[in-house]
């Protein structure tokens, strides 16, 4: 699995977006969700996912809670978007659109 540097700046965006659609995912499910939706193109790295989750929790974008999972009856930490997180997501999305459209223009015009 090659390291995907393009993900660096978009980690927050991806996590927030996925959580906005499917609240109540735990870390592993988040990772697999991104993988599935992107058809295996994007993979979140464990090494950066968890620090990012903690950081976003600190910022107040997401909140976490421990639940007992029905399928495995084990404790799992699930995440959910907060109001601040939703706002952040909108901002990140806008930024992403701006960047991609700018890049597209460059590709087209140059």
């Amino acid at each position: 699995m090659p390291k995907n540097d393009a993900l660096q700046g978009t980690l927050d965006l991806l996590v927030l977006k996925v959580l906005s659609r499917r609240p109540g995912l735990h870390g592993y499910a988040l990772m697999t969700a991104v993988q599935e939706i992107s058809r295996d193109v994007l993979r979140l790295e464990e090494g950066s996912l968890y620090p990012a989750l903690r950081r976003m929790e600190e910022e107040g974008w997401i909140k976490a809670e421990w639940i007992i999972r029905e399928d495995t009856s084990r404790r799992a930490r699930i995440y959910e978007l907060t109001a601040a997180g939703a706002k952040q997501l909108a901002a990140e999305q806008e930024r992403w659109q701006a960047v991609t459209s700018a890049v597209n223009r460059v590709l087209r015009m140059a």
Partner: protein
Amino acid sequence: MGFWNRLRNSFRRDNLQRDLEEELAAHLEEAIASGRDPGEARRAFGGMLRQREHAADYLLLGWAENLRADVVFGIRQLAKHKVATLAAVLSLGLAIGATMASFRLVDALLFRPLPVEGAERLRVLTYEMRGADGKQLWGDHHSYPFFAWLRAEMRGKVELVAAAGTWRMGVEHEKAEEREQFNRQQVSGWMFPVFGLKPALGRLLSEEDDRTPGKHPVAVLTHHYWQRRFGGDPKVQGRTFKLGAVVCEIVGVTEKGFSGMEPGRPADVFTPMNMNSEAIGEDGYNWFRIWLRLPEGVSEEALRQELGAKLRAWREAKAAKGDEWADEGARARYFSAPVRLEDARAGYSDAQKKYRQSLGVLAALVGLVLLIACANVANLMTGQAMARAKEMALRVSIGAGRARLVQLVLVESALLAVAATVAGAAFSAWSAPFVVGMLQSPEENLQLDLYADARVWLFGAALSLGVTLLFGLLPTLRASGVQPAAALKGEEAPKRKQRVLYAMLAAQVAFCFVVHFAAGLFWASLDRLSAVPLGFDTGNYETGNLVNLEVEATPGQKVVKWEALTERLRQAPMVEQAAAEGWPLLGGNFWTPGLEVDGKRLSGIETYMLSVGPGWFETMKIPLVSGRDFRPTDVHPRVVIVNEAFVRAHFGNQNPLGRRVENSGYKESPYAEVVGVVKDAVYGELRKGFLPVAYVPFERLNDRGEAIPKPWGNFALRLRPGVGVGDVKTLGRELESSMAGIRVGGMREQQALVDAQMVRERLLAALAAFFAVLALILAGVGLYGVLDYTVAQQRREIGIRMALGAPPEEVARKYLLEVLGVLAVGSLVGLLLGVGSERYIASLLFEIKASDWQMMLLPLGSLGLTGLFATAAPLWRAITVDPATTLRAQ
């Protein structure tokens, strides 16, 4: 939110760690379950440790985590140097404790605001007066007619409240076996609503309780007295007590915390002003203070001027044509006397006036001791910092910032300061009441509420912080200034740094000198004051005690048969001799008469008068020089006995017997004949020594030659040898039951009256001596520590010099010269400071001056000796350095 979360997280680190680990473990498990290679999955995490650190970094606030580490490290450091730490905590603790104790005293007496509404705007009305010597004084007592008039005049502008001084007086409670004493303060009834005071029980007084002289026998207890005397009895309302012949009913209890307006003498009971019915109509009787609270939005200066104008108007309206004035200037000064509004937010009392300066001086001495202690600890820590230079250098070279090092050392300082403050608080909790205890005697009774309130804690915290900065800053700067390359190579600290240590030592010596100097002055003052000859004999258990008994007519009973009483007392089995007297010598009363000798008004030297009965001189053991004692038939103003000082001052050493002393106040018998001369004795104040005194007969005639009834007086009693003062406690009761119409008040021991004259001096001397010893020990320890450290640092240098042939004397001389230099510079500065401070303490001294050269000997001697002791051990270590061992070890 983010900040506090992180801060909290940094102290919940273990919990968070466990959370994270569990989450990651669950993730791993799931990954493996879904078919990933276990090894690969684990590697993807990049190692659990890195993961942990990485995630934690977002959670923890760096400095909080560092702080925790520094505290732990600091405690370890302090624990490593147990003796040094203990010495630092103890010395600093003593100094901080003394500072806190003195703050508690000063605060309780001078600064703590009264617990009343708008205390910061409370004022007391005073007016200018001229003393006998023309000195400016500020009078604070007024008469009731003036007060009532002024209050009516100022109505609508400012409310005035009258409050008499708090007096200790006898009281008879219901069913009480013995007569007790309590502190009674007479106040305007409307004081309570004006001051916004609330009752804890029943009701407080109001204007309704203070209208008609003698018609409001009601009383309010303070919370404190209610608890102490009545055990907080909820049914105390309606109970009564007897003040003389008046039965007063208790109507309520004040809120907790309020005990009158006189710090130093808390009130137990308040009664209305109008119950002092004899004084209420007297214009010549100034017996209370006038209080007011500045109304909002009114200029204090305008109010002051208006009150001044009112005083003038009152005085001019009252002035009689026949009033005599020494000169026109005195007259003008009287009418235009300015008034002042004294800030009374912290109360207003004689005790404040009496002890303000003494406590100020003691606080200054305490401050010096604290500085010495701080310098000590600073030196100690600087020494340690130097010794730790390598550690610091290592920290710097592996990337610690200077700020990090500063924090490290400051944390250590703060730990020391906090430990010392705790020790100090414990010390002050014991020592502050102890000092107040020193001000207790039958004749001197300073009562202070020393509870530790928020002010005390705040002061303690501020002190702790200030002290940390004071002694922590120097070692901190030193630690952070370390040069890694040099320090790691083992190079010595530059010489410059040594000089800082010596400068601090010199400062310590200077402060120590000042404290010693002051202590010496106070001791010499006490010594000289207690050596002042009394002129009479207070006696003791072996030779016969001298006591004074106060007697007054019961109300309605105008006459006391003083002669018959004297006889009865003389016949009492335990009494050797007894005689009537106006009041006891040194008892606090003064009578300055308008006497003339050879047509000249006595002036210049203060001259006093005292009425005494026959046999009084014998009782007091004041020898008769010539002439005769009073006879039972003698009356005032026919004859007079003068003391030798009187003869010297007013008769120019001529034989005064048969000469006339004119009594300007009497028309019928304008002169008295001198019938005897006695030896000198002190009169009202020990400090003043022997002054001219005219003794006149106890019985007195008015202008028409009729006897003036005397409803109040005292007896001087010489007890038989072997009779204790406690043995005659019942004498008063026996006397009352044997003769109707009299009440016997308190018994005052003459020795106690003498002792009370020296309470302040004794306090100053004892505390200053304590501080002096403390300062000396601290300075000695400081000197030892620095020298010891210096020698240890320079072992290699000493070794080299000795190896090159330097004799031990030369090595010793070097260090001795350094110490002597420090002592000399410090003493010189201390001497200048001490002499310079004289004017602040001159009025507390007695017959001694700061410029007396003997006073320098004590500090010089004690400092020299201490220096010698402190130097000896390190010096010995220096000259016994073995070059071979030292050089090999390095």
